[in-house]
């Protein structure tokens, strides 16, 4: 009996809430990351922040391992491994002892306490514990619960840990020429189109959160006149900063459409009282020319969306603008602006299937059924090459902001298209010699 087919899935027009998004299979491989991973992704950037992870040996081991790799062995992640007794009688006293000990011995400026699935399940109240202990220690206490059974990915862990960092901030006099970058998780934000143009206009970066900051810098994050949110995971943080410190924000994510990027730049012009759009007209022209070129090549071709560093529906909408037809879009969850992008896709007359992300195994059966021209995202290149599917990964654009994102994306798509036959031939030769491991050419 055929277990995996598209008919199990909902179509775009049937998606109204998260529960409408179905997985291609009941047995999932490899599955999504959990919120604990999201916390590790954020907190490990801040080297002087002590993070206490409380949970099973397994959870604490993997979180510490990630931080260890990220911080080259100088991690500030500490494990509280719970046992049978803790699960039966609670572990509040144990956690308090650990906090007191760390506060006394390491004397950190802040401690982030992270509770995991099992402790949340038994109802251990970490938020109350954090409030109770705050007066008794010198470190600022932040609390992030990371139960995975209430969500479907690592995103809530990132959102919550960023939001908690606001508790470290203090009211400061505003520096009219400075901005914060919120949510950026790559180094080198100063090399992006966005920052280059802002610097030309005399604007400087106050803080890049989380990728280039410390606890002291976070205290003075409120000096910035404006927060620029470059990743949606920092939206709750930006909203909290607006609420508590009256700092406005502009959502300048990794957009792809010319209009959205132009609107974002326009908002920056208004908030910062500078003129930048006129200096980017050559970029706009380059993008428009590239879009026309791409449409000629891509018109009528089909694709499956796997994953990119951008939002699934936003990228899909952009690819529709380029003349491509979506067959299947793999998504994590529905997010704040998704309804806009979903409408845009529908306006092209397309109604693709929608499935949950991070489930590679059944996809092998779906390729045969869909026969797409393109696959956007990570997958074993051999699996795609043997089916004559062009693979495009867009990881490189993670470090970009502004018109350079759609420009570089289109260039990569066209390059992948041009080089497909050559790559396919190489892959087939490798396959004949015994294959290769999962990866991307």
């Amino acid at each position, binding site marked *: *009996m055929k*277990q*995996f087919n598209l008919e199990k899935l909902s179509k775009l027009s049937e998606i109204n809430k998260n529960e409408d998004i179905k997985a291609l*299979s*009941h*047995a*999932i*491989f*490899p*599955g*999504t*990351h*959990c*919120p*604990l*991973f999201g916390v590790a992704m954020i907190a490990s950037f801040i080297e002087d922040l002590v993070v206490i992870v409380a949970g*099973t*040996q*397994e*959870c604490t*081991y*993997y979180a510490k*391992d990630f931080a*260890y*790799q990220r911080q080259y*062995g100088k991690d500030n992640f500490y494990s509280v491994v*719970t*046992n*049978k007794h803790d*699960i039966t009688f609670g572990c509040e006293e144990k956690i308090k002892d650990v906090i007191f000990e760390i506060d006394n011995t390491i004397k950190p400026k802040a401690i982030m306490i992270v509770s995991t*699935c*099992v402790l949340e*399940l*038994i109802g251990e109240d970490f938020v109350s514990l954090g409030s109770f202990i705050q007066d008794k220690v010198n470190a600022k206490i932040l609390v992030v619960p990371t139960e*995975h*059974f*209430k969500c*479907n990915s*690592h995103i809530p862990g990132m959102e919550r840990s960023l939001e908690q960092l606001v508790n470290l901030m203090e009211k400061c006099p505003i520096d009219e020429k400075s901005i914060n970058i919120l949510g950026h998780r790559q180094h080198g934000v100063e090399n992006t189109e966005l920052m280059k143009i802002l610097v030309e206009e005399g604007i400087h970066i106050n803080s890049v959160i989380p990728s280039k900051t410390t606890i002291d810098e976070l205290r003075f994050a409120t000096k910035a006149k404006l927060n620029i949110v470059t990743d949606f995971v920092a939206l709750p943080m930006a909203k909290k900063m607006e609420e508590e410190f009256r700092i406005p924000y502009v959502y300048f994510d990794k957009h792809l459409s010319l209009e959205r990027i132009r609107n974002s730049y326009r908002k920056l012009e208004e908030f910062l009282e500078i003129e930048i759009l006129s200096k980017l007209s050559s970029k706009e022209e380059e993008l428009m020319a590239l879009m026309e070129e791409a449409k000629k090549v891509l018109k009528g071709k089909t694709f499956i969306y796997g994953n990119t560093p951008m939002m699934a529906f936003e990228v899909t909408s952009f690819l529709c603008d380029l003349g491509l037809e979506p067959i299947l879009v793999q998504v994590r969850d529905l997010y704040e602006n998704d309804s806009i992008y979903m409408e845009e896709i529908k306006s092209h007359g397309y109604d693709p299937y929608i499935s949950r992300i*991070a489930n590679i*195994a059944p996809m092998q059966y779906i390729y045969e059924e869909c026969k797409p021209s393109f696959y956007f995202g990570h997958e074993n290149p051999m699996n795609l090459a043997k089916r004559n599917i062009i693979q495009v990964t867009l990881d490189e654009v993670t470090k970009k902001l502004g018109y350079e994102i759609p420009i570089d994306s289109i260039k990569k798509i066209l390059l992948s298209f041009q080089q497909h036959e050559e790559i396919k031939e190489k892959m087939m030769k490798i396959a004949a010699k015994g294959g290769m491991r999962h990866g991307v050419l």
Partner: protein
Amino acid sequence: MGTIWTLSTIKDAYIIEFGPAGTTHFAIEGLMQLNGEHKANVYTTHINETDISFGKQDRLENAILEIDGQYNPKYIFVMASSISAIIGTDIESICFEMQSKVSAKLIPITTGGYNGDHTLGIERSLNMLCKEVVKPSENKQSKTYNIIGNNVDVFNFLSEMEEIKNMMKNGFDFDPNTIFTAYTSIDEIEKTTMGEINLVLRGEGLKAAKTLQKEHNMDYYYGRPYGLEGTTLWLRNLQEALGINVNEDYISKKTSEIRKHLMSYRFMIREVRNKSAILVGDYDVVIGLANLLEELGLSIKKIIVKHKLCKEVRKYIPEKWEEIIEFNLSERELEEYLKSAPSYLLLADGGTLKLENQSRLHLQIANPNFSKYSIYPYTPFVGYNGTLYMIQCLFELEKSKSKY
């Protein structure tokens, strides 16, 4: 963790974990840190609040039916995660009820939860494979052996395996039949009983070896060969267990080859005043390497085992180490000790080597691993070649320290 590590290296094994997806995802990615290759098919069902509140298990039942229908595997290993274990999901009953609906044999795994550390999962999984998957066989494959306890969590497992194979070939002209479990397949595990003897390389494999002895009348030998003397003793004990003569030429040749380097090493460190060494890692590895270091003229100051010791092994702790061996210290206790104990050499896992210590030379011999990338399978610590390789490493360490 131990269960997933043990089963992940078995080709054609199908494993379903009933719990949040993150746990499975971490475990799969964790294999890379161990320099292991993922061979099995590991799936998660994910689980949400409704499943937990109402004790729903249809995700698991559907996943079992789906895997059985799509891939037609011989076995499906059904695991509870910590979450499902705590809410009391009865994996055994689910498997019992579902068994009539599927072709695969369903094997419940109940090591999730808070029963012990990763070594318990490894011990029980090895034993479970021997109980549930190994089949009786009429015909023995002469001159073959099985290995129990070469698992992906053992640092340097690839090289250790090659050296054991090399020694069995040179010493007895024996070939491997089944390796539990890095790397192997379901088919190979089924035909375990075709091997003549089981070589148990780690304590966690003893229970499995005893099961095979009881149920299939298979002999076993427990030991991990390190150093010149230790390796020769290992071969001689095997000679007795197998009832055939070991190749004396092989032993003589390797002995004379190693002896000259042993002497050179002893000569090189003759003026080192404090020749003490501290070992931190997995039980069988640190016990074996302690003997090797003694042969090299070093004195063992402390042996620290980083996990709980399984019951089967307690009686094997050598008397001479009883006073200096410690188990399962916390990271703080470990660091306090290392800071207070000046030594010449520290052999330890990647994490311990980052702690503050008073040791002059450092070498990684255990996981967790943060930087070692192991694909070349001929740098063992066990056996004759392992002795040579260890002498080479220690020579290089001493010289690099002297130079800079």
